[in-house]
């Protein structure tokens, strides 16, 4: 007997035309997760099976992969005789605690004699004869025993753990996440990744107005997202000059509106540059002055690229709950200011006027500054596991 991990697919089983592309991508994503564990993956349209010596560790890793409905530990046997199967099922369940059970058989090997239902009934009858006080029921049984008869092996497994759902990452293409150090944007990123978007991230750094710890915090957040996304490319834009020009030249109640428009434009330019189709951010309707509907309209007007706002209809508490679940909350609440929270005027405009915006924007040659900022950006590749620079000390 060998243990294996069995992966059942989520929503992607509805994609009939390009299912192979989805499955291939899922396989690649699982493989990337299991880089440190020796393994082999086989899959068909029904499920994916991971053969490995360390099923427990593999299971934990695979839990972070999107596009999975359920993950189970399975027991693989070579013995394909009906008698052998019965005995092996009995061995697997005799020490489990349950009162009611049912057997579900699947024959991938269509040459195996008998119908699946008959085999289930046969195995069930055998188990009843060997176990005391157990009953078979077909709905809501305590234990569902899955028996899958395959060409070269028989798999026995039980209901497993729920997967994260969603689509395999990168099946839907690439998006650029506007990542700040706050609570909302990492959650927005997570939700986009869940729908199969592979993300890269952009962060606006404003030294010396912002602390290096603020950047470190963003790197930490990106690292948490890398668990789900795979390596996250973090584009760090030096925003100091643009921000200082805005502060020097533009009346302060329009400062946030113009600043956000600049960020949008830089993000859109960079997104096309890296072949991303969309921009993702953590805006939530009404949360701050720049997120009133009117503000969003005026800010969004700066670019043509679609902007996806996964948390825009969530309450703050709902976002916090998700952030805690993903594991970004603790990092997000570290007290380092990013460039959006410095220089905030007391009364920013909440109904900005586009005509006034145009007028103010013409006061400075922002185009040149923006191109410069993109050209001089720093790219940090963030892997799931932090390279510990202090390893030799610890």
């Amino acid at each position: 007997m060998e243990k294996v991990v069995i992966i059942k697919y989520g929503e992607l089983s509805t994609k009939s035309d390009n299912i192979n592309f989805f499955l291939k991508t899922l396989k690649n994503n699982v493989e990337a997760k299991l880089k440190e564990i020796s393994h082999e993956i086989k899959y068909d349209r029904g499920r994916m099976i991971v053969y490995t010596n360390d099923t427990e560790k593999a299971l934990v890793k695979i839990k972070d992969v999107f596009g999975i409905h359920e993950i189970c530990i399975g027991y693989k046997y070579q013995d394909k005789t009906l008698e052998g199967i019965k005995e092996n099922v009995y061995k697997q369940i005799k020490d489990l605690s349950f009162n009611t059970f049912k057997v579900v058989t699947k024959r991938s090997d269509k040459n195996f004699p008998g119908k699946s239902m008959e085999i289930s009934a046969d195995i069930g009858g055998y188990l009843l004869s060997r176990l005391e006080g157990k009953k078979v029921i077909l709905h809501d049984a305590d234990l569902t025993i899955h028996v899958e008869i395959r060409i070269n092996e028989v798999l026995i497994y039980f209901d497993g753990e729920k997967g994260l759902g969603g689509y395999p990452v990168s099946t839907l293409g690439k998006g650029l996440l506007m990542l700040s150090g706050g609570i909302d944007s990492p959650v927005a990123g997570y939700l986009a990744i869940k729908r199969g978007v592979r993300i890269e991230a952009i962060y606006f750094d404003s030294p010396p107005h912002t602390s290096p710890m603020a950047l470190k915090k963003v790197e930490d957040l990106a690292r948490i997202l890398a668990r789900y996304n795979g390596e996250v490319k973090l584009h760090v834009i030096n925003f100091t000059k643009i921000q200082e020009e805005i502060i020097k030249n533009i009346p302060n109640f329009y400062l946030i509106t113009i600043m956000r428009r600049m960020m949008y434009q830089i993000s859109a330019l960079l997104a096309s540059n890296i072949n991303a189709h969309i921009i993702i951010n953590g805006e939530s309707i009404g949360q701050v002055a720049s997120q009133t509907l009117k503000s969003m309209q005026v800010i969004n007007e700066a670019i043509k690229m679609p902007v996806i706002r996964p948390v825009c209809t969530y309450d703050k508490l709902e976002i916090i709950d998700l952030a805690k679940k993903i594991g970004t909350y603790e990092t997000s609440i570290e007290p380092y200011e990013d460039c959006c929270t410095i220089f905030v005027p007391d009364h920013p405009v909440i109904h900005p006027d586009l005509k006034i915006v145009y007028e103010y924007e013409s006061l400075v040659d922002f185009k040149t500054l923006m191109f410069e900022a993109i050209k001089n950006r720093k790219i940090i590749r963030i892997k799931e596991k932090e390279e510990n620079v202090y390893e030799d000390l610890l």
Partner: protein
Amino acid sequence: MIYLDYSATTPVALEVLDTMTRTTKEFIGNANSLNGLGIKSKELLNSAIKQIAELFSVLESELTFTSSSTESNNMALIGVAMAMFKKGKHIIVSKLEHPSIYAICDYLTSIGFEINYVNNNEEGLIDFDHLKSLIRPDTILVSICAVNSEMGIRQPLKMIRQIIKKENPMTQFHSDMTQGIGKMALSLHDVDLASISSHKIYGPKGIALLYKSSMVNIKPLIYGSGKSNDLKPGTPALPLIVGFSKALRLALDDLEKKEKYISLLNERICKKVNSIEGVLINKTKYSIPHILNLSLMNIKPETFIHAMDNEGIYISTNTACSSGDLSSAVMAVYNDLTRATHTIRISISSQTTTEEITRFIEAFEKNYQTLNSLVAKE
């Protein structure tokens, strides 16, 4: 020199010392400073804390550094008492605790708390029925050490926790793990609060930690600048913390292998001294092999210790922290005053060699005979 007092303290491991020297020289910034050097120190501090959190599978925010296990014990017991006195003033401790626990209990008694001492059976194990009967609706805390420092008796913390929480889910469970860490696998998830010290695991002296589950609220003992939930404000002792973190990583390696080896050495001594008249081995089936307690019924233990000193062999009377008194653990297990006032403690490490044990046994027999014959003449 033959050092057999590892339960009192351990020599600092050379690689730990190296880490501390380098940290002291290269990381001069205050981890609370905002400047570049401060940030560098803070990053190292965070890495060190993260490593400890990962070793124990707990949250980084659940760890507080203190100066010693005694301080951790104070922080835990007084901290819980001050946070929960409105719910109750009843605390239970065992009869096998480190003296610092009893000193804290005396203080708490003086300000109106009520302390009960739970019995143990003849093997030294906590009497579960007695514990159950002691827990009341106003019991706020139970403190029971993971391993007793005198006889090395190990307590089943998980089971004790289950008993406590079943009787009163509000009661917090603290364990002084100082003598257990690095000697056997311990889970912090079996307790709500735990004290752990660095100098018992080949780390520096002057640094220890308190684990406090995020579900537990305690009142700080000291106040200073910093975050409001900070139990120990002040500049972090970076070189000590980094050294501690490294020592812990090394100490938790190969626990089983080390224990097996130490068992062999322990057995060798027991076999020899078992046949000597007037020597009693204070050991139950729950004693860990790292600590060997003997009663020399006819000899003053202190005299014997000094005789061994003269040969360059270092052992101790019951514990370094309570020399001169009676061994409360031996008393609690055997209820024999002579036996409890005549104890010596030999503590063995995985660094101890078989050669050292051989020489120890020779010196033991020689000194015992000399001193015993003197006593007989009187």
